[in-house]
């Protein structure tokens, strides 16, 4: 037993050393996971803000067409960043038909055109713009803001003319007090709800995807490079070989996933300071069960990937099987996001992949429901064992020593 453990450890250690010596691996399992969420949650919003500010300060050219140009409307535009041109036009057809303005807007001679026409008490309008141009979309947005304000003024005047109170007429139903005070969920639970929407998804996809490269390298890669034959002639059993390689892939994947969680928590910590999201309230039991569910999922996924890669004759073949196989995780992961957890039927917790994703969602809300825990843990163990047996079967095939080369 101790000899067997020694051999498994030796194989795993060698796999990790060899894998880590490739600089691309360092990028893939350390740099990318640790930077992904901070970049997504911190740098990306900063970039968006900066782009929005740049657009705000941009000079936008708007042409207003019509017979009359109400002062109240024209005054709504901010003249420091918007250039208004007034053009007298009489319309004979629908205001929405671009006509001559079609090419002017498309060629960006002007950012947008506002057309106005009064008929009796009603003002009709249309905006000719180019939705694929950011400048034109910004022009449309500024026009719409101005029109809304102007419409509010017109409405107020009409209400007053009718002898009514403006506020009670326009806002007859009001919330009393602060909406956030009425929610009985704690801030931690609310944070858990937000995190439960994407953490299971990220964990599942990242666990699967980060195990692909090492799985292929340690099986089809060895087969292709001809190193597997020398290994199979050694006095270690195929099961020890599988266990060693599994431990190697699991260690690499584990580090990748752990670093990604560190990056995620850092990003959440940063966002928490900006009151965007809080820290979830989790009991020790929920934390331990989260770890157990991820481990069971990892055992299954890594064993399955090793088996599929070992079946392949080359790295290319393994890549073309395992790459698209990520759909098997993405679809259930997306599907799981829309399943309502309140009153959920227990059978959901027995379906492969979905069981772990639902378990993670529930546990992040600190809901430890014994029946659900028993179902997802027992079925996860079953699937992990089946995947391991399948992997063992593949490792015992004799043709794994043959290569395409």
């Amino acid at each position, binding site marked *: 037993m101790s000899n067997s453990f020694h*051999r498994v450890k030796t194989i795993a250690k060698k796999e990790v050393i060899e894998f880590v010596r490739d600089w691309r691996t360092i990028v893939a399992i350390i740099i990318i996971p640790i930077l992904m969420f901070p970049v997504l949650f911190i740098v990306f919003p900063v970039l968006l803000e900066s782009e929005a500010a740049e657009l705000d300060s941009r000079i936008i050219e708007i042409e207003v067409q019509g017979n009359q140009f109400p002062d109240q409307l024209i005054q709504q535009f901010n003249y420091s960043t918007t250039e208004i041109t007034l053009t007298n036009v009489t319309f004979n057809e629908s205001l929405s038909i671009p006509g001559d303005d079609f090419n002017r807007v498309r060629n960006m001679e002007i950012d947008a055109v506002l057309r106005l026409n009064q008929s009796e008490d009603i003002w009709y309008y249309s905006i000719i713009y180019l939705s694929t141009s950011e400048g034109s979309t910004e022009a449309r947005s500024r026009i719409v803001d101005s029109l809304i304000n102007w419409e509010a003024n017109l409405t107020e005047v009409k209400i007053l003319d009718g002898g009514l109170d403006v506020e009670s007429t326009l806002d007859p139903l009001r919330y009393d007090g602060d909406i956030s005070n009425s929610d009985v969920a704690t801030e931690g639970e609310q944070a858990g709800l937000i995190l439960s929407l994407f953490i299971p998804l990220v964990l599942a996809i990242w666990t699967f995807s980060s195990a692909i490269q090492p799985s292929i390298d340690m099986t089809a890669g060895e087969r292709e490079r001809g190193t597997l034959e*020398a290994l199979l002639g050694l006095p270690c059993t195929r099961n020890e070989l599988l266990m060693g390689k599994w431990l190697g892939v699991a260690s690499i994947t584990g580090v990748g996933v752990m670093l990604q969680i560190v990056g995620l928590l850092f990003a959440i910590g940063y966002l928490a300071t900006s009151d965007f999201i809080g820290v979830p309230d989790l009991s020790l039991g929920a934390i331990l069960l989260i770890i157990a569910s991820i481990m069971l999922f990892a055992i299954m996924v890594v064993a399955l990937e090793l088996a599929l890669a070992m079946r392949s004759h080359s790295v290319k073949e393994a890549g073309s099987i395992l790459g698209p196989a990520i759909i098997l995780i993405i679809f259930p992961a997306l599907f799981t996001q829309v399943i309502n957890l309140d009153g959920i039927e227990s059978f959901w917790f027995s379906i492969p992949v979905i069981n772990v994703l639902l378990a993670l969602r529930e546990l992040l809300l600190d809901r430890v429901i014994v029946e659900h825990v028993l179902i997802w843990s027992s079925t996860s163990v079953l699937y992990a064992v089946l995947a391991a047996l399948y992997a063992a079967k593949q490792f015992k095939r004799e043709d794994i*020593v*043959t290569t395409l080369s």
Partner: protein
Amino acid sequence: MSNMAHESLLTVSNVFKNFGDVIALDGVSLEINSGEIVGLVGSNGAGKTTLLRLMSGVYRPSRGSVTLADGNQVHNMRSTLGVVPESTGLYSRLTAWENIRYHSRLYGVSDETSWKRTLKFAESLEMEDNLSRYTRGFSRGMRQKTALLRALAHGPKVLLLDEPTAGLDITSARTVRSLVKQVRNEGGTVIYSTHQLYEAQQVCDRIIIIHNGVIKADGSPQELMSITECNSLEEAYVNLTQEKARMRFEDKKSDGPLGKLWNKLFKPKLPDKTELMGVDEDE
């Protein structure tokens, strides 16, 4: 057979090995004695590598047995063997010594013991200065020497070499051959697969000619020439292997039902001979 009297070390008894419908080895029986260099000679696809893989425990016989002197099946006693496959099987991101140490540890041999044995043979192979280098940039010869060191580091009784000099330059090939003789002189046994008759004649005490999965002859080079009444080993070989050699077949089993359907639909077809005959070259 060689006249040298040695104890039997490894016995292959009536071994058959099938891959799907194809018979790779067809009732092979032979005995390997201690302290001899046995050459397995045959053309490509003759069954040399399959036989070596059976003797190293990588393959299991479809029928028959491969046993050691104590009666144990060879796949249960692999620690007594040292194997150098044709591809050498070195990890390019490990140094030469790390490659050797990795295998030695899996054989259950201490680093100290394997280091001492490695140094001893590294001197003969002029590899001492390369042990700390990554094998990534090694030449074919250096890779072969490293693989030999790796196979010897745990002190095996039997050394199995699959075409150890294929692709080597003259100097490296000589060095490898000389090491093989050194191992034999120190009491070791070597099974040496090759398709170069000159080399087999130079190195081996005994030559087994294998053709289409069947052993055609087994004896010293002189005995083979005498049996066939030929003046050279090459003539003797040609005389013994007159049947048309078959193609390699081991990968044929790998196509599943989908693969077979795919091949049926998209397999490239040769032009029809009759069509070609009808084409006027001037057109």
